[in-house]
């Protein structure tokens, strides 16, 4: 990072005193990134942007801890790990991403201490989520939030939960398992997260049937091409003519690569890292990997260009790219990318089914 202004911004985030300053800094980050979008390579752009998102989360966690201390709740009774899921976990957040988070805290010896931990981290998570909301990160609509007790647990409790999901792979459990697959520790004791992932991959390997259920879950988003190779656009409404980049291009690709990575026991959460590791293991041919990376970067870039709306001062996106923003040349590239995406989906399907 050579840009001194950027370093200053990150420094500012790391030393912000309250959510109001965080919100101001968030807007500065937003403006700067919007200005840099046309100039910067996609991967570097996402890297920087997600560094900033991470910095906001980390600072919010610290501020929440200070607040609790001031209120006489003391310091964290045991070590903990703060996890990001979804695009945050994959370090693929756009300018307009919401919060998907969880907490793992270490186990205590006695029931009473365990209870104390639970109370502390519940209060902590509430504050973190609130601070981030004030900073400009909307809540996850599916309530995958550290402030939800379901996603704020001790390590042993997480293990029980995970086991339960593996034992009964109904659609909801499969969805949760896929969420966990994209988890990343953004703050705290990384070791706790590593242990959870060890469990996760151990169970996947023991129960290949789970991968089949994951396949069914992840293939539900179809690539937006019809059999004539034309783009499937929104037909009606105010978004008529636009293309659902998020669910028609980006997510199918994320899902396909995630599944290959899970089957190969890869711990990375980022899609690009997953592709590179798959290539190293020889599971994806070098040429194919290069193509995958190229189109995934294209999807990431188009995703950045999706419509943004500001609702109540919050940044959000509907993930749809209006036709006016898509040049003819870009549309051709997108079509080719989607064709490859479709091919990849078929490959993953065959690969997974052949393992069973």
């Amino acid at each position, binding site marked *: 990072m050579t840009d001194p202004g950027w370093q200053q911004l990150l420094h500012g985030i790391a030393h912000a005193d309250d959510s109001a300053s965080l919100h101001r800094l968030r807007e500065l980050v937003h403006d700067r990134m919007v200005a840099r979008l046309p100039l910067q390579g996609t991967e570097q752009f996402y890297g920087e942007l997600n560094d900033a998102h991470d910095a906001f989360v980390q600072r919010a966690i610290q501020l929440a801890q200070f607040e609790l201390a001031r209120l006489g709740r003391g310091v964290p009774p045991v070590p903990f790990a703060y996890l990001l899921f979804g695009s945050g976990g994959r370090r693929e957040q756009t300018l307009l991403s919401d919060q998907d988070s969880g907490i793992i805290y270490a186990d205590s010896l006695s029931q009473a201490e365990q209870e104390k931990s639970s109370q502390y981290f519940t209060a902590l998570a509430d504050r973190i989520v609130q601070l981030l909301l004030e900073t400009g990160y909307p809540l996850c609509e599916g309530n995958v939030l550290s402030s939800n007790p379901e996603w704020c647990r001790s390590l042993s409790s997480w293990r029980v939960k995970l086991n339960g999901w593996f034992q009964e792979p109904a659609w909801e459990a499969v969805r949760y398992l896929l969420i966990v697959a994209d988890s990343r520790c953004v703050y705290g004791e990384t070791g706790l997260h590593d242990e959870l992932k060890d469990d996760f991959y151990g169970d996947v390997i023991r129960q290949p049937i789970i991968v089949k259920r994951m396949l069914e879950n992840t293939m539900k988003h179809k690539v937006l091409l019809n059999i004539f190779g034309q783009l499937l656009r929104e037909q009606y409404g105010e978004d*008529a003519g636009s293309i659902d980049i998020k669910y028609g291009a980006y997510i199918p690709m994320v899902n396909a690569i995630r599944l290959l990575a899970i089957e190969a026991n890869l711990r990375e959460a980022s899609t690009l890292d997953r592709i590179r590791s798959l290539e190293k293991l020889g599971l994806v041919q070098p040429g194919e990997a290069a193509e995958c990376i190229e189109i995934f970067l294209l999807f990431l870039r188009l995703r950045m260009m999706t419509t943004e709306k500001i609702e109540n001062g919050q940044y959000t996106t509907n993930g749809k790219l209006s036709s006016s923003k898509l040049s003819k040349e870009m549309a051709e590239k997108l079509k080719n990318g989607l064709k490859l995406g479709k091919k990849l989906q078929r490959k993953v399907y065959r690969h997974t089914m052949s393992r069973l």
Partner: protein
Amino acid sequence: MIKKMLISISAMLVLFPTMAFAEDPSSATLNMGLNSLWVMLSAILVLLMQGGFILLETGSTRMKNAGHVAGKTIFTVGLCSLIYWAVGYGVAFGASGNDFFGWGDFLFDPSKVSVDNALPPTIFFLFQLAFAAVSLSIAWGGFAERAKFSVYLIFTILFTALIYPVVAHWIWGGGFLFQDGAQDFAGSTVVHLTGAMAALAGTILLKPRIGKFNKDGSANEILGHNQVFTALSVLILWVGWFGFNAGSTLAIGDGFFGYVAFNTQLGAAGGAVAAMLISWAVLGKTDIGTTLNGALAGLVAITASCAFVDPWAAVVIGLVAGVLVFYSTRFFEKIRIDDPIFALSVHGAAGIWGTLANGIFATEELATKLNTGKGGLIDTGSWDQLWVQLESVAVSGAYAFAVSFIILAVMKKVMGLRVTEEQEIAGLDLSEHGNYGYPEQLKKSSTPNIGA
């Protein structure tokens, strides 16, 4: 049933033994009786198609207009019957007409029984009336959800007296297109295109429904309130179509009506399947609405040719109609014409295709049998029939559109066509009739207290 009949016949023979020795009816009388039964049954089937139109139009529109949309059909069928009896039938089939319109038989007072063992004129009238009413109900597709009730009243009169019967005369009543050899067996042009052209004129003059198009020209999807009604309507229409097409033989004869029914089934099937597959291929999802429209488009298209073509051609005509209706629907939406019931595509585009298809696929053998025009391009290698078909479709379509447009434009000037925005938003059930079709589902908003 048979047992009962046998018992009662034996009882009658015992009671009136002389009857057994009464003179046997002649074979001509028997033929007339059978033909009459078949055409009467067909007339009933075609009239029952109104049930299909009621469900089609209601299912494809919103709940707040349901009572109006459904109920007005009963009114217009009634009014259409009176006008067709008084004027329309005479314009279509009146004996002392010319090449352009019939004359005579107004306030039709037919003989009460068959004359010379011909089909009783009463039955012929009912059959033809049912066709006129179908054409009228097709036209309403373009008026749906925003026309004043008075428009339905006036336009029913003028359509039934001046528009439909003139085209019917040209092609079926011995008019100039008939003399040119135009082949439209059961009315792809006469019934369907005529209705669709009136719908087109109506929807252009009425303008799109509130909320159908956005300022930037993109369309919104105004979904119908009951897809089950719409699907059921298609089946009712499909079944009714056997009366429509196979009944148009007007005779049992050598059993040829069965072949007509057979081709009708193939055409409908082709339309349904092709429409579903094309929507799947293009949209990535199978679209129910398109599938339903496809079945109807297949039926509309095979209507002109059902008695003229080989079975394979009936399938092709249906398949093409199914694809055509899908793209036609998108086309009308693109040029910002609101077609709530898809009448323009299902009856217009498919009606044109069906009429032209006759000029392509008609076989010489069947054309000779029916003794109207000639075989089509494929069988004879001659473009003659296709040219005649093109002429008939262009002239009839232009007439129906122009006269409908003029009539409706004058009506628009004089009385206005469309309800107010407030009435349209509240729904026509309330504004035109004072009651909702679904009173439990929708609550009347309390009357605003203007005085206070």
